[in-house]
């Protein structure tokens, strides 16, 4: 169910379902995979994800996430995974270099966030990551997806607009954007 937020009238097209593979602009082979199996806090993927966030540039934080320091990163991720949403990870070899998450408000409405490690930004990974995440959501019945973004963060706003998000509310310090998936 949508809340007071304004969603676009038009339904977005079909997004690619993960897994997807591509070569980024720095010639690196990247694979985006849904994190289905062992979607929990004692898997190898979890440890690789913790590693990415512990090394995350604090200047790239948004509205307090990811938190700084390994203990807080683990607490935050464990809490995130307990909510049983949908997650995709961008892999470069053994390393997680990007993470996209859909956290449920209810069965059809989700909050979205994506994070790309600073060494992998500006190489087209964010676009592939968010498209695979939205495809994964579509596959599992997500209808409404929203996010918040600091309004000065133009690269992020441009990325969200490119895949079809529209401004849902601009009254606060941070902007709310939304997309309709089905």
């Amino acid at each position, binding site marked *: 169910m949508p809340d007071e937020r304004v969603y676009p009238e038009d339904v977005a097209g079909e997004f690619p379902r993960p897994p997807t593979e591509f070569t980024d602009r720095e010639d690196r082979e990247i694979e985006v995979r849904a994190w289905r199996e062992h979607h929990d806090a004692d898997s190898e993927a979890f440890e690789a994800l913790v590693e990415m966030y512990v090394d995350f540039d604090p200047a790239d934080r*948004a*509205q*307090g*996430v990811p*938190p700084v320091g390994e203990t807080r990163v683990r607490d*935050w991720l464990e*809490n*995130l995974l307990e*909510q049983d949403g949908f997650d995709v990870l961008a892999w470069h070899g053994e390393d997680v270099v990007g993470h996209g*998450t859909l*956290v*449920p*408000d209810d069965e059809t409405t989700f*909050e979205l*966030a994506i994070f790309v490690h600073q060494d992998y930004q500006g190489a087209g990974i964010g676009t592939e990551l968010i498209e695979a995440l939205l495809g994964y959501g579509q596959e599992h019945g997500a209808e409404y997806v929203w996010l*918040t973004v600091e309004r000065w963060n133009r690269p992020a706003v441009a990325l969200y607009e490119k895949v079809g998000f529209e401004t849902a509310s601009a*009254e*606060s*310090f*941070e902007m709310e954007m939304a997309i309709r998936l089905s």
Partner: protein
Amino acid sequence: MKVLLGMGGAEDSLDALEETVTRAAAAGDELTIGIVENPESDRTPEQLVAAANAELEAVGLDADVRQLSGDPGSSLVQVAESEAFDQIVLGGGQRSPMGKIRLGQIAEFVLLNSHVSVKLVR
């Protein structure tokens, strides 16, 4: 220090209440608690007055607890400026399902419009 705590009734304003009363008791602040009408809150002003009084009693502190009418942000700013407060204290925002902090509308208004220093409690 003369401190005005603004409470609208969201969860973060209860955290701010606890922190501010504890600090006022330790530092000898002259505390006033302004209860405002927050349309985003589930708690009534009467419940907030009761919560404030309970917190004050627990530490044995005397403070002025009042209900402010009208627009919540502007009534807090007006009281703080006209009565020469040193500081306004507010809750530091709520977390979204995925953990992002979002400031409440009252905090945003007060931050932008107040000439008195503002403290947000996390």
